[in-house]
């Protein structure tokens, strides 16, 4: 198998080839570093990576290879994914690599500790290829709000890769990494997955520790896997999931048997619910067509498809844009020019701490971050709290009741992941409200804490761009997503004659990636 074929394999196949000795981890990591060097840099590069972790990734790979060569308990104790490389969203803190959160305010900042998920990657000896681009502090749906330039969609370099985790999704879609970590507050794993033809999962809230993910909205944020196959996401969630005493919202009883569920692949007799409110009007025709096709395939495989109604989902977007900025305005107060990151002195007048703080935050934060901090400060202020934040929290209860009623009737829910395919870079940049609408189908899961998965559902007829299919399950039932997702994936791939990314255009060699 040559390097071109190797980097296009699934993580599970890479792991099997490492275990059998057909390839070494150093070869595998080097093939990905070469791919990053070939397609990520320059004016027309994908720009998925903010930092490339060459030395450490190769050292970890060499260690895995040495353990395997020694045999015995050293080799036996290696994790199934040992030696398979991964990229990490730059919202997640790492020792030895800068963490910027896509913001100028943290430029060059080095975390003194590892996030729990990063510790788990290190324990599994998965080489970390680098840190991926994102909308500043994960605030956006296009990666255009990154202070370090947008990421480009590998399917069309003039289009957005989704956001906020556009870097992780694009890296996986462009074969720069087989796996990546993302974070999902309102759709930041799933919407980028949809528009890049990749798989992404937002686990049940609390199933994966948030310790070391720079918080945007703590009651909504969740770390999750990004991959090219459903099984790969299941394998990765098993690595990063589980209880963590350092995150007091971490579940002691999360869903298990995820990879087994993906391998089981059977939907016979399952009830799958179409959410009446999450398709039809406002959804692109090509998205709707691919969605209907997936329903037919599932029906053919023995699932019963019924329609359910979630009448309060119409309020979800509004509630989200009150709760998320409220929590963000509080979480981002720590960027004060004292404890970490940049400090800027005011242009004139005495440099008192309050004025230094205001000047630092003015220079360090971008427009979208400022907009959300001001909106959150407003929603929490005296006289408005009950009408805005208080009402939004009540809507959250109504959304949870809608889910409970729906899951009393069906095993999983299904919808398009995003109402449209990837739009052009710049198209919605100056219209915040239009940008927010991208998350209309993904937000309800965050408000209710339930897990959601996106997988590619094919290409829209009108523009040839990927469409995402979203599956939703009750809290702690992440395994169901993998079970149904794997079935749909195999039915779709049988139709396409292979993975959807085989149909993506080849990327031209770009200028070498500059070290940033």
């Amino acid at each position, binding site marked *: 198998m040559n390097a071109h074929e190797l980097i296009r394999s699934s993580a599970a196949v890479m792991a099997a080839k490492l275990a059998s000795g057909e390839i070494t981890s150093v070869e595998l990591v080097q093939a990905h570093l070469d791919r990053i060097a070939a397609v990520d840099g320059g004016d027309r590069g994908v720009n998925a990576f903010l930092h490339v972790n060459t030395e450490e990734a190769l050292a970890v790979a060499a260690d895995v290879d040495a353990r395997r060569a020694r045999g015995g308990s050293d080799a036996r104790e290696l994790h199934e994914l040992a030696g398979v490389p991964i990229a990490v969203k730059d919202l997640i803190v790492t020792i030895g690599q800068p963490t910027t959160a896509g913001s100028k305010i943290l430029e060059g*900042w*080095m*975390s*003194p*500790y590892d996030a729990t998920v990063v510790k788990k990657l290190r324990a599994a000896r998965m080489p970390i290829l680098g840190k991926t681009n994102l909308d500043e502090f994960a605030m956006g749906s296009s990666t255009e709000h990154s202070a370090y330039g947008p990421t480009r969609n590998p399917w069309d370099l003039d289009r957005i890769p989704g956001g906020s985790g556009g870097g992780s999704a694009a890296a996986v879609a462009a074969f720069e990494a087989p796996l990546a970590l993302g974070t999902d507050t309102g759709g930041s794993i799933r919407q980028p997955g949809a528009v890049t033809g990749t798989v992404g999962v937002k686990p*049940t*809230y*609390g199933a994966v520790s948030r310790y070391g993910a720079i918080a945007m909205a703590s*009651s*909504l944020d969740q770390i999750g896997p990004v991959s090219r196959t459903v099984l790969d996401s299941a394998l990765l969630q098993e690595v990063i999931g589980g209880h963590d*005493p350092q995150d*007091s*919202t971490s*579940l002691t009883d999360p869903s298990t048997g995820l990879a087994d569920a993906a391998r089981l692949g059977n939907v016979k007799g399952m009830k799958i619910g179409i959410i009446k409110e999450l398709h039809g009007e406002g959804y692109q025709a090509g998205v709707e067509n691919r969605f209907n096709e997936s329903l037919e395939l599932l029906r053919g495989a023995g699932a019963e498809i019924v329609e359910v109604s979630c009448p309060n989902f119409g*309020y979800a977007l*509004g*509630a989200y*844009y*009150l709760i998320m900025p409220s929590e963000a305005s509080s979480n981002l*107060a720590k960027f*004060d*020019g*004292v404890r*970490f990151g940049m*400090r800027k*002195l*005011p242009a004139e007048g005495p440099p*008192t*701490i*309050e004025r230094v*703080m*205001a*000047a630092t*935050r*003015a220079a360090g*934060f971008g427009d979208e971050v*400022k*907009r959300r901090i*001001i*909106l959150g*400060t*407003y929603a929490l*202020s005296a006289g408005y709290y009950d*009408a*805005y934040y208080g*009402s*939004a*929290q*009540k*809507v*959250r*209860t*109504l959304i*949870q009741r809608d889910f409970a009623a729906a899951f009393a009737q069906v095993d999983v829910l299904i919808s398009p992941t995003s109402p449209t395919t990837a739009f052009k870079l710049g198209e919605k940049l100056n219209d*915040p*409200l239009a940008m*927010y609408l991208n998350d209309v189908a993904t937000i309800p899961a965050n408000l209710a*804490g*339930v897990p959601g998965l996106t997988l590619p559902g094919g290409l829209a007829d009108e523009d040839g761009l990927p469409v995402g299919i979203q599956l939703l399950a009750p*809290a702690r039932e992440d395994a169901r997503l993998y079970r149904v997702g794997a079935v749909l994936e195999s039915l779709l791939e049988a139709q396409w004659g292979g993975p959807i990314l085989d149909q993506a255009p080849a990327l031209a060699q770009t200028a070498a990636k500059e070290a940033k």
Partner: protein
Amino acid sequence: MAAINREQVAHLATLAHIEMSDDELDRMATELAVIVDSVKSVSEAAGDDVPATSHPIPLTNVMRDDVVGHVLTAEEALSGAPDAQDGRFKVPAILEES
């Protein structure tokens, strides 16, 4: 509910410790007015009998043994600070007069 105006944005920016130019205040007030208008239906969605949800998966009283675990050293904690002295964060003047 009243629409958000420029004076309010200026006040909120002060509360949030973000310096803003006149242009920025104008732009922010216009954009936020549109956003606030789009979310105001939320206040009519739920009746008084609906309880608020602050956290998606209810957990109560998460406790641990009162044992000192691994914590950052002072040096580690100060490693990313813009200014430090004698093992402490160094801040600009708290009061107007120095």
